[in-house]
């Protein structure tokens, strides 16, 4: 399958050793993207979180047991994008420069095929209408439209921020954005600086340099979905959890496999 090759490829590198799992990325994302909160958010199959922290354990016994986190935004898959290929309504596409997987809520028919297809669980179905407690609707951002019941939503790499950056560039008659002119809300919020965001195709950009590091890896790499979100860690046990590796499998060289 030939995908459109874009000049720009927006991607993210998350340094798991810097990340301390505080959840600032999650909250910044919720506030930026007008997510609503239900009285009980403990049913994680129903709790909508575009960015979500997964807690992972190394499985060792005391006193070797340790835990860590996988922050998980939408992977913005670049190859055979699983959700796009199943959408019967063309409500989700990869057709814009930069390769962000779009989600058009007013076009979505709520069949949830994409939710089933996504191997990363990044897609959320709106089982309920958005309800904001009295007063809190004042804090809704006009840049992102609140979603109605019956449609699917997901992380968009804060696409509206891309549009805002482009708009500012338009004022200055620039077509190209400067490095870091467009970053996602989670990138901006992260207190540890664990998230780096930018154009993966630009070898000068920090994000491309980090993604090229030998200890960079992606989740479920062998599915061949070419996610645009990379992770860094020096810990083998974390890296091993990125896919269903067999005990003896060489998980360090998996990136080199071609599809």
């Amino acid at each position, binding site marked *: 399958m030939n995908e459109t090759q874009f000049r720009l490829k927006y991607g993210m590198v998350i340094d798991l050793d810097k990340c301390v799992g505080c959840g600032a990325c999650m909250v910044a994302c919720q506030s930026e993207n007008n*997510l609503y909160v239900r*009285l009980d958010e403990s049913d994680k199959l129903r709790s909508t979180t575009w960015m979500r922290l997964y*807690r992972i354990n190394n*499985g*060792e016994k*005391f006193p070797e047991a340790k835990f860590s986190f996988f922050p998980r935004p939408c992977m913005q898959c670049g190859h055979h994008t699983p959700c796009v290929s199943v959408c019967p309504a063309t409500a989700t596409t990869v057709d814009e420069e930069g390769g962000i997987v779009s989600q058009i809520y007013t076009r979505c028919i709520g069949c949830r095929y994409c939710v089933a297809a996504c191997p990363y669980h990044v897609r959320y179905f709106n089982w309920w209408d958005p309800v904001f407690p009295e007063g809190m609707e004042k804090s809704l951002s006009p840049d992102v439209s609140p979603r109605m019941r019956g449609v699917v939503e997901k992380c968009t790499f804060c696409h509206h921020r891309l549009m805002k950056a482009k708009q500012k560039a338009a004022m200055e008659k620039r077509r190209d954005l400067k490095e870091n002119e467009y970053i996602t809300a989670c990138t901006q*919020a992260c207190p540890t600086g664990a998230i780096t965001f930018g154009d993966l195709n630009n070898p000068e950009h920090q994000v491309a340099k980090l993604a090229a590091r030998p200890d960079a890896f992606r989740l479920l790499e062998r599915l061949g979905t070419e996610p645009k979100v990379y992770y860094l860690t020096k810990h083998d046990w974390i890296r091993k959890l990125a896919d269903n590796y067999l005990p003896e499998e060489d998980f360090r060289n998996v990136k080199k496999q071609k599809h």
Partner: protein
Amino acid sequence: MKIDRRGFIKLAVGAVAGLHLTPIPWKLMDDSAIWTQNWPWVPVPDTGEATYVNTVCSLCPGGCGIKVRVIDGKRAVKIEGNPEHPVNRGGICPMGAAGLQLLYSLGGFENKSATEITETALGLAGEVFAPQKHEGIRVPGPIKRVGARGAGRWERISWEEAMNTLVAELRKIRDSGRPQALASITGRQDGSMPRLLARFLKAFGSPNAFTIPSAEDTAAMAVDLTMGAGKSLGFDLERAQYILSFGSALFEGWGSPVRMMRANGLWRDKSNGASAKIVQIDTSSTLTASKADQWISVKPGTEGALALGLAHVIIKEGKYDKDFVGQHCFGFENWSDDKGPHQGFKEMVLKDYTPEEVFSLTGVPAEKIVALANDFASVKPAVALYGKGKGSMPGSLFDLMAVNALNALVGSINREGGMVLTGPAPIAAWPEAVFDEIAKKGNENPRLDEARTRRYPLTKELFYPMARTVTRTNTPLISTLIVYHANPCYGAENGDFNRALEKIPFVVSLSPYMDETTAMADLVLPGPNYLEGWDDHTTPPGMQFPIYSISRPVVAAQCQVTNPGDVLIKAAQALGGSVAASFPWADYKELLTKNVEGVAKAGVGVIGKGADAWKKIGPTAPALTDAKFDNLVADTVWYNPTLAFNKFDGVFTTPSGKFEFYSRTMVDKVGAQSGSLPSPMMMRLFRIRATGDKAFMPHYEPPFLNGATKEFPLLLVPQDSIDFPDGYLAAPPYLTKTWLDTQVLKNDMFVQMNPATAKEHRLQEGDYVKIVTSTYAEIKTRVNLFDGIRPGLVAILTGLGHKAFDRFVKGKGANANDVFVLSSDPLSGFAQWWGTRIKLEKI
């Protein structure tokens, strides 16, 4: 003309054919499609111009710079970190990012703009306001209790009536000649507000201004005793290469939380060649322990012993900084004075804290202690940190002295990447308070928490014993209590406090939120949310240079609020006499303006623009020319990144002018009580078990824990998480999405324990248990198994189990404070909360 069936069909056929040539079908199809996309109950946010307003976050003492995105100057829609601010440099914590949900938690009363509310203030009087229906946490305006206390029935009153009620109560107390019957509680330590409140009480004539103590108090006491008064402890962490943390929850909220997380980013920044090593001494695999390069598990409460074990190895192997110890330390070698010879720190540690001895105390194998000590002494710059958990509760004095001694041994005081002594920001001194006879007499009374008395001569704040003192007597010791920025009805020992509250006839809350304590108040004078009012903030805990910042109103007040500072100033002026004379400011903002004048006068430092200040730290202070209030407001922050590393002239203000391993100040202050050198009897009164010179040096004192090990075999320890605010505020709704389903599920919370311990107690994952303490307090939780928890311990999240606040947190989980039985630290008397003996009963 008769229309038959055929005719009718033809008419219909014609009509249908015609219809297709009209807009009706196409238009209706289109319109109905659009109609289904515009349900009126799905909000459509108003668009407008977005601007950013810089201010300072006040949700914790961290003092981060934030910028708030505001639409058309009216609606705040997002809080982001300010990259120019020297504390957080662009980062933000989850609580800070969710701050708007505190501002806009308005439900339950008619949602009017500030001007409308002011206009109709009198019209609202008499309206009964019942928080049962009140979804939001904001208090809409001044209210007074109408039903039984805590029943939640209130009457809206005007600010005029509210102030009159308060002043009348205050006047009654003063007229009775017992001004000490006025008390105040605050949980805040930074900024002018707690000072102003304490000043109000002092001018009024009461010594009973209570601040809930935190790790800062332990640190301040240790600094006073070993390095001299007037300094505070900072850490040049960003440049440290070796961080040895004794139980400090570095990434869960210790110090200034965002700054600490940012430091982790710097320590781990391989692309900048960073190679810092973090070693965490902790009982269990906490977040910091998991994120550290090395985690060393110790028995609970023995961190100080391990520090002394490390000191032993470092001294024995001669790896200590001989120059620093020789020139700038006192009491290392044996010494003598007119009272005879004294044992030095060196001899004491070599004798008493051999690795084998320390192994028996801490459970850390001797060879591990030796290796760790060598590691710590060989990497420069290395720094040792203390302050258990988030630091929201005080720690053990001798433990902290031991960790400080470790820093002194490796010469990591006033060194790059080490421990740094800083002074306060040069804000202008306030005019002296004046006292009339009533005030003078009132202030002579002992504090109800016994701090600064014979029993606790070194301790400035204890707070917790106050509740027991009040409960014990029949005559009300406190007739009016003012609560500002504190929630003691939820916090530690809340059972005692709630009992004490029954003996306090009049409780005034200055909180903007309907928290547990406000719910028990008689009069609520709501202050502004932190995005609605003027305030200031002094150096956050752990920062290596002084900082002073101003927070300002970002949006119009959403409720009828008055700044608590203004409430105090107005009340003082209404009281008249010397109380009024002690409050010469027109309002709180004028006080802040005057503060800034002092900064301008000092003429040093930087305003704003501090993204990389820590890199530029130099020995000479940058000159400051534009220190005006407005500039400080626009850039939010003043700081002075001047660090005179390696200079020690006049740094230590102890009697010896050096860092004192043997604290002469302690000898003086403790001895002063008995007129001479403290007798062994005295020491027993202070519950110090060590004898002789050792008692005045860093040493290990076994902790006192309540309850018998046989009946209560498990130890309950608090588990810190930045996503579970456990102070004055409860979690705003957004934070509940960050909670794991192994922390909170439906309305139940989980405690974590080791699978082996669980097996011993016949417990399995998900089981419901009752936690029972030696005081027979109990709460219900569920069990979550994690191998990282030290066997024999049960780790419990703090910050859940609220009875007030909104429906997003109310009734979720249990309040860990209900089952923490506080013990008290020898000498300082500080509350020790880190270990409570419990038993688990399966339900």
